[in-house]
């Protein structure tokens, strides 16, 4: 397990040989993918790989790979590879891109650490590390806005860190352990234990941009280079979701939460996020910003699935983790392609852009159709399960909110695509010419667009089966 981090780090050492650079970067993300494949074989029959090191007091450093970690790490390894390839294209000829890769790889390494960690303390260590490595990516452009956004993110990271530190401290002292996998550490509620829950909520809420803690995200995405936004929304955001799953299922335990009713807090925040994010997305003209607000809404779905505490909703969340990564990753990569080739970031400037770069905009359209949740696409499956889960939890009215949010999604995504292809009669000839695009940039975009429906049209939807297995383990 640890070699995965090692792989990302050794490639850093290699970076000084210019000719080897691209190869080193690629191997930095390929090696983990292979290792993950190997691990998958090892853990096929639900065995749990486990490693404990006696460093990092008081709780020690623990790694543990259960089915959920396996699923997440597969996703992460895949998206890390895709986005890194894309970043190679994004910073193709520029010297300025050089340090970006260090942080990118370090942050990816941190993400792997988060997923594979076996107790909250290890989780915390890598979580902080990942966030700190993401911060330079946000501020990377060194413009005043970028450094302001970076500072904002930095503060949020520290606040999240302090909140989580507090929560872990309480957890460890009141239960004597922070390890995952025992199905609940606490027996009875107390104000301190509740404060720990709030601490976790703040920490993971900040990371995954849940509603009252979301405000760093639009700024960060708007001023960061697009690969950073993509890596954040496809991978890092998910660590927050994973963290909440761990908190509810492994630290507190399902029955404890049900009894205490604390999931309702999460549910209210999730629903608020779902609607608020969508409504705000309308008002944005900056493409990255609109995507960021839509991301806030999508996080609402995932949190909702966790908060409902039913098996079906849980499946919905996990499927949404994958679906959202494909969809939002694809959109951000498209936004990046548009920016690199035309310098445009405003939606109002993008009329007729589909004629210049049809493939990009086709991919974007696929992703946005998927975002709305039209049947053959990924998000349909996750929304379907969320709806079923809500029904099973005895809250059918949530289905209406889901539908409402989908309609909102449609109404802010479709105009982008429609304007891109149609409504361009008044454009001059120059702007109608097709641009030649870098294959390194385009292949990842196409892969992700394909992923938005590939699994659902296949006869056996194996991610879904995998998730069903995981959900059975947890409920």
């Amino acid at each position, binding site marked *: 397990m640890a070699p995965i981090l090692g792989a990302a780090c050794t490639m850093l050492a290699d970076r000084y040989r210019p000719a080897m650079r691209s190869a080193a970067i690629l191997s930095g993300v390929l090696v983990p993918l292979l290792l993950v494949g190997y691990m998958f074989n090892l853990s096929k029959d639900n065995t749990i790989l486990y490693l404990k090191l*006696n*460093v*990092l*007091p*008081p709780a*020690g450093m623990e790694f543990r790979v259960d089915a959920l970690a396996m699923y997440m790490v597969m996703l992460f390894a895949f998206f890390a590879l895709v986005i890194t390839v894309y970043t190679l294209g994004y910073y193709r000829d520029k010297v300025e891109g050089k340090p970006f890769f260090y942080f990118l790889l370090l942050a990816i390494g941190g993400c792997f650490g988060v997923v594979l960690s076996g107790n909250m*303390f290890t989780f*915390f*260590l890598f979580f*902080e590390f990942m966030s*700190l490595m993401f911060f*330079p990516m946000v*501020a*990377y452009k*060194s413009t*005043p806005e*970028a*450094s302001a956004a*970076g*500072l904002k993110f*930095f*503060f949020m990271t*520290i*606040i999240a*860190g*302090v909140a989580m*530190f*507090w929560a872990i*401290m*309480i957890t*460890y*002292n009141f239960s004597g352990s922070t390890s995952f996998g025992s199905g609940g550490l606490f027996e009875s509620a107390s104000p*301190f234990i509740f404060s720990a829950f709030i601490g976790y909520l703040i920490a993971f809420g900040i990371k995954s941009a849940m509603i009252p803690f979301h405000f760093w995200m639009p700024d960060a995405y708007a001023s960061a280079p697009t690969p950073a936004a993509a890596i954040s929304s496809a991978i890092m955001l998910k660590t927050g979701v994973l963290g909440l799953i761990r908190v509810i299922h492994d630290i507190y335990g399902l029955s404890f939460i049900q009894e205490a009713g604390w999931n309702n807090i999460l549910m209210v925040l999730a629903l608020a996020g779902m609607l608020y994010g969508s409504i705000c997305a309308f008002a944005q003209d900056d493409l990255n910003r609109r995507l960021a607000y839509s991301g806030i809404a999508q996080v609402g779905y995932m949190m909702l699935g966790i908060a409902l505490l039913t098996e079906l909703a849980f499946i919905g969340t996990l499927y949404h983790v994958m679906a959202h990564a494909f969809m939002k990753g694809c959109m951000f990569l498209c936004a990046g392609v548009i920016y690199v080739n035309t310098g445009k970031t405003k939606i109002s400037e993008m009329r007729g852009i589909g004629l210049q770069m049809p493939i990009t905009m086709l991919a974007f359209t696929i992703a946005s159709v998927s975002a709305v949740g039209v049947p053959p696409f990924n998000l349909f499956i996750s929304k379907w399960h969320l709806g079923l889960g809500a029904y099973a939890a005895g809250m059918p009215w949530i289905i209406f909110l889901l539908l409402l949010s989908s309609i909102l999604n449609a109404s802010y995504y479709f105009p982008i695509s429609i304007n891109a292809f149609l409504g361009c009669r008044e454009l001059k000839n120059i702007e109608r010419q097709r641009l030649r695009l870098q294959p390194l940039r385009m292949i990842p975009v196409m892969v992700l667009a394909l992923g938005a429906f590939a699994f659902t049209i296949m006869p056996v939807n194996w991610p879904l089966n995998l998730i069903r297995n995981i959900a059975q383990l947890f409920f």
Partner: protein
Amino acid sequence: MIVPIIGAIIIRALDEDQAAKRHLVALIAVSIVFISVISMLPAIMAGEIIKVNLFSFLDGLGLFFKIDPLGMVFGLVSSTLWIFATVYSIGYMAHEHDQRNYFVFFVLSCSAAMGVAFSGNLFTLYIFYEYLAICTYPLVVHAGTEESVKAGIKYISYSLAGGALVLLSIFMIYDLVGTLDFTAGGILGSVAVEHRTLITVVFALLIAGFGTKAAIMPLHSWLPGAMVAPTPVSALLHAVAIVKAGVFGISRVFFSLYGVDVLQGLNVTNILAVIVSFTIIVGSLMAIKQTVLKLRLAYSTIGQLGYITLGVLMLDPTGALGGLSHIINHAVLKITLFFCAGMIITVTGKKNLDQLRGIGKQMPLTMLAFAVGALGLMGVTPICGYISKYYLLTGGVLSGNPAYAYVIITSTLLNAIYYLPIIVNAFFKDGDFEKQPGPEAPLTMLVPTLIMAVAAILLGLFANYTTIPFIEAVLKTVF
């Protein structure tokens, strides 16, 4: 046993005149101190206590050294960091005047710090405490400007006034119990009931005396003033030796004179806790206001020292573990920060924070070390500051005073407010700094700084094998 030898070596250093040899002798002197301290470590960890009675004037009054685990903490931290600070000084002082003077007192104060660490009774502690103040005075006024003379006078008068209070309480304690020896568990237990008011007064005197050095508000104002000293002096004395001597004195009062049981009976810790919490918060707030890097670090020190005192006065093993381990962790982190500030001054001559935009382009390693130090103080894992913070929080919650924990949380957020912009501005704002060929700073300065930064991370990761058993050995004798 070994301590007198150290004194002799240092006198040899006194006679030295030539530059290269001077550096060598200074280094050898502090290394020998370090080696002798570390050679005693296994015995101390095994529970032995080494005693050396130098001479005595009266019964129980005299120069008496006793090496116990608590003294070992302070001795080991100071002697280790002294080596790095000496190497750093060689680089820093290369262009300064009157180096001989500087190094003489620099090495002398090392012996004073050792004396403080290993003194076996309050009288010896008092003598070395004053000796330390006097040795460091020439270092503070080294620049020789009017400003530094003024700061020096302030510094020495605070120190001596604090010392006088300690002396006064020495009389009173000697009168009460007839001994001044530090004993684990306290010496005042026998008289605690009948002389309740009196020993409360003595307690107040002692805390005020040592609190001056520990920069407890409102007795802190000498510390920012003393920042006119050359940076290695600020780093060592105001991050490690002097202020820690104050904190160490307070720990001695708590653990070796009064003992936990007596203090619990006296009920004085709550008042002190309020003062210390006030110090932590206000110190952090004032740090935000500062525009000069070194001053900001100084105010941050005031706040951080409060952590240590707070941990000690929780009278709880876990809280004390946090407080005492912060002696080590804060020393390593803050010395890193000061070293960075010093390098910036040497290389670019800039002192103000708003001049430091974009300095990360010229001095990336320096600012990286700075980031490690600053993040460590905020409690980011795995840099060592988190350990003390963890145990302080735990101690606060478990000892039934979550208010302590809230103070620490607030102060952590305040730390973030005054450190983060420095880091962000250094790397992500454009300024008038360009990449320079060659090493970014003299190697004698850069290398100690980087070693400290790496040590901070290692101490955090492997605290199971270093800090924690060490401090637990101390606590075993106390609780």
